[in-house]
Structures are given as C-alpha cells and as structure tokens.
C-alpha cells in the first residue's frame, strides 16, 4: 500500500511575525521558512506505518513555487521514498484548489492513505483534509491523536481530539487522515538519510497536467495586527463599574 503525505512550506513556527507596512500580508523576505509542523507530524506517522510493515512506499507532495521543493527535500531526508512537486506560479494557493490538485494526484498515485496536517500555521484554515475527502468521496479521520492500521481488514482506527474529549472512528481504506499535535514527535533528519535523499527523485508536475485550474476565488483585502491590548482601568465605585458595563462595554 502507498501512503501519500502532503506538506506546506510556511514561516517557521518560532519566528516573530511582522505585518508588512502596506497591510497586504506578512513579512516573508529573509524570514526562516520550514515545513508546517502538522505536516511534519503527518510525515512521521506515514514513516512509522511503513516501518512497521503497513505500507510499501511513502510519497511526499507539495504545491507551490520552486522553493516548495525545500520541504520535499526535508521530507526525503526524513525518509520519504519519493516526492512530487506540483509547480505553480501563484504565490498563494487556497485550500479548495489544493484539495482539487491533491484529489487529482490521488487518482494517479492511488494511495491507500492520504495523510495531511490538520491545518497550516500561516492561514489556520483547517479545510484541505476535509475537502479532499469530500472530492474523493473517501472517509476521513481528522484531528488524529492516534492511528492504528489493520492491513488485513483494510481499515484504520483513528482516535480524534474533539471538544468533548476523544472520539474513535474506524475508516475503511482508502481514507484521509489529518494529524493533530499529540499524534507523534517527528524524527530528526539523520545524516545517512540526508545523503540517501540526494539520489531520490522529485518529480515535477503542473496543475494543467492534472486538469486542475488555479482559481483565485479568494482575495485578501487587508492584513492587520490584532488591536493592542488596552491598559486596565481602576474604578472608584460600583456605580462607575455599572455605568461602564452598560455604556462602554455594552454587556448590560
């Protein structure tokens, strides 16, 4: 069985984000970029399944401009067998388009499992996994904190982190899984694997070849910082408090 893992190149999680002066987005020049942490967890899970005999191959996929290949190289260095880079010229590709591309790729690669991060830390959309599952008409186990594959039954049991606690679902393959933080701790890229990665293939594919049109159906109007927290005010009486709650905060 093949496992396909999709990953996104984002601003490194530890970087202090700064909004551009023209409010069109955040500062990305000379800023450290890395693989989205949830995608790293997705890849780690795929590698573990392969190592325990559940799968024969792990294919890493990324969509974007040339630099997206960096994350694929990291994936190969962590142990993925091969990679596919869907090249786009647009600087941002939105979840619906990503989902269409991934489902087209899934039709070609025919994986038994498609594992993705639950969301990207730059847009926090949390949409791609769910949309791909919808387009492919595959079952989905999102916010996975535990994944157990039953190869014989061709089923995967996923423990999901939900608001009320944990929910366990059983999905028949092929299925889509999106990973949450507690699923695993990703491995480091070891030197022997970094060296092996040099001979691994990154295949380039265009959206046209997959019959997917890049639609910018979303337009970013403005990006601003959240309002600065205002200082607290010490009040002199309960009457003043009631007055402020009624007239300023408008909660009474």
């Amino acid at each position, binding site marked *: 069985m093949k496992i396909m893992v999709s990953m996104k190149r984002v601003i*490194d*999680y530890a970087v202090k984000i700064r909004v551009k002066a023209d409010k069109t987005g955040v500062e990305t020049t000379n800023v*450290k970029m*890395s693989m989205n942490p949830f995608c*790293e967890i997705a890849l780690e899970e795929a590698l573990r399944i392969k190592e325990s005999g559940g799968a024969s191959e792990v294919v890493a996929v990324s969509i974007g401009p040339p630099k997206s290949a*960096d994350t694929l190289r990291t994936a190969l*260095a*962590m142990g993925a067998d091969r990679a596919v880079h869907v090249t786009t010229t647009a600087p941002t590709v939105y979840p619906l388009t990503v989902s269409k591309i991934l489902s087209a790729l899934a039709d070609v690669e025919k994986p038994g499992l498609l594992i993705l991060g639950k969301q990207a830390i730059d847009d926090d959309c949390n949409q791609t996994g769910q949309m791909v599952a919808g387009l492919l008409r595959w079952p989905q186990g999102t916010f996975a904190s535990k994944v157990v594959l039953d190869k014989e039954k061709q089923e995967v049991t996923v423990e999901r982190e939900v608001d009320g606690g944990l929910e366990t679902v059983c999905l028949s393959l092929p299925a889509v899984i999106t990973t949450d933080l507690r699923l695993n701790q990703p491995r480091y890229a*070891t030197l*022997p694997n970094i060296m092996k990665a040099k001979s691994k293939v990154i295949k380039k594919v265009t959206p046209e070849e997959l019959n997917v049109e890049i639609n910018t159906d979303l337009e970013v109007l403005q990006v601003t910082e959240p309002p600065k927290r205002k200082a607290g005010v010490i009040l002199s009486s309960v009457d003043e408090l009631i007055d402020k709650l009624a007239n300023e905060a408008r909660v009474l």
Partner: protein
Amino acid sequence: TSGILVCEAGCILENLDSFLENEGFMMPLDLGAKGSCQIGGNVSTNAGGIRLLRYGSLHGNVLGLEVVLANGTVLDMLGTLRKDNTGYSLKHLFIGSEGSLGIITKVSILTPSRLSATNVAFLACEDYLNCQRLLLEAKRTLGEILSAFEFLDNHSMDMVSTHLEGVRNPLSSSLHNFYVLIETTGSNESSDKEKLDTFLMQSMEGGLISDGVVAQDINQASSFWRIREGIAEASMKAGAVYKYDLSFPVKMLYKIVEEIRQRLGNSAKVIGYGHLGDGNLHLNILTDSYDNNDILSKIEPFVYEWTSEHHGSISAEHGLGMMKADKIHYSKSAETVRLMVCLKNMMDPNGIMNPYKVLPSF
C-alpha cells in the same frame, strides 16, 4: 545603519539583541545568561560565549567606553569610529579587568548584520582526535559561514538527559563518545545548506563523524542548543560541582579531563565540554556534597599546575575574581603581574575598586 550601538552599561544583553533585531543587526556575543546579564558587566569581564569563533572577542568589537575612575573622573572614550590610532588605546584596560580599574558606564559597540540563514547540526565523533580533525575541516570547508563549534563528552550528555526535563539525545540509537554542535550563519539559505551538506558528507565519508542530525526548523535547532547550554544547569542538579574554565591548544584540551578522571576514580563524575572552536574547556567535577575535602585536595592545585605546565590559561573566559586572584601566577609571569600591580596602584591608590579581586593581595 552603521551598525554601531551606543548604550548605557545597565542594558540587558537580550534586550539589546531584540532591539537590534528590528534594525537588522545583532549583538556580537551570546551567552546562556543573556536574559539577565548587563552589557557593562559583559564588557568588564570580557565575556566570551558561543559566538566568539565568528565575531571575535569584545576587545575587537567594543569601539569605545565611558568609564568612571577611582578618583571620580569621568573618562569619555566613547568613540564610534572604526579606526582611531591616536594615542594609547586605554579602553582595553577596562575590558576584562573586572571593574578593578574603573567602572564602565557607557559602551559603544560594533554590531554585525543579522543574517537570516542559520543551520545547526548535532554530530557524533568516536574520539577526541576526530573532534579536532572535524574542527579543522569545518574551518576549511565551511569557512566564513561557521558561527559556532561546541563539543561535549558522553558523560555531559548523560548528565543533561538525566537531569533536565524534555531534553533528549537526538543520536540515541547507539553510544557515542563525543558530540559536536556546529552552527553556520549566512545570507543565502540554499547555498549555505549545500555547503553544510557537502561538509557533512565529506566528514562522514572520511570517518570523522559516526552519526549526526541536521535541524530542519528553529525548534529543532533550539533543542540541540538546549543540550549544550543546559549542561551547567544539569550539573547543579547533580549535587556539588567543582568548575574549571581552562583554555589550551586544541590538541591537548581533553587530556586534562582524562587525567582528572583517572586521579579521582569512582569518587566523582568528571565531565568535559565547551567552546572547542576557541580551545576553551569547561571541566566540571561532580560529587554528592561539598563536605568531602579529600576531593578538592586531589583536584587543586593539580589542575592549575597541569594547565600551567601545558601553557594553558587557568581562566579562559570566567575571569579571576576573588577565588582565583592568587592563582594568577599559573598563567602570567611575575614581571607581567608586577606591571599589573603598578597600574592598579596608580589608578586606584586607595584600593576601592573591587578590592581583593583579579590581582593577588600582598
């Protein structure tokens, strides 16, 4: 835009670095205590730290100082010029003299550009000889992008993984004798990565390193640094620590660790780590409690005598203070110390500037 920062002595190092970050610069030094140490103190102790290999010592980076002398004179040497050969360069007297000749009140320091591409690799070497060869190779192959080269022995690694929360050995699959942390800093992410990969591949093929990992994001890089920077903290949790900060020619740096280990046998745990790139060893001897005087007598004066015989420094970056003032002769000749005493007497005749420190009390 010139990269020259002028500030008062009480500014905390980390705050200065954050301020400079917004302007695209950085402080030329970095140490574990950056969250609380003040720049005036850093300069008066000539603090070293983990970036000395790349940016040099404060003697090179400090352009000027404002100092208050023992007689109350405020000496304004706060120049911001890169080059100024007019008269004796007195600022050097105050850098590293631990406040015994004057109090630093303002600092003018040259700050390097903050480059965006950092890479950290954590490697394993089978023996100390390979650590040395690796250093040589790193300087040759990584050249101008090398920004830190630290080492720790397996005893240090044991200590940190046992006593610190959340710290794990990234190379835990097999036992290794020595670990080296290499950091590169440059302006071009992809070419730096390529240089590092080439260096690592060559080192692996040449048998210099037996295993290693490369950080894929800032979090992983921080976790590698946590291992190296956490050794001092972990040592304190182990019980009683005897600490020595020595510098030697790189070739014999680890020999003293082995000698002390042999001398003390099972009575103490001996760990060695430090700024290998600068030839600076931190030697820590750990026991259960400080009550055992027997241990101390086995360590001192042996460690100082050994250092002196091998032409090393008994205090590479930590200074002399009060504890080592009378040990200065192990690393400086009698004539040199005499001239120091002359200077001290001339500048501070009443002995009010940090008395009993740096120089032996006569």
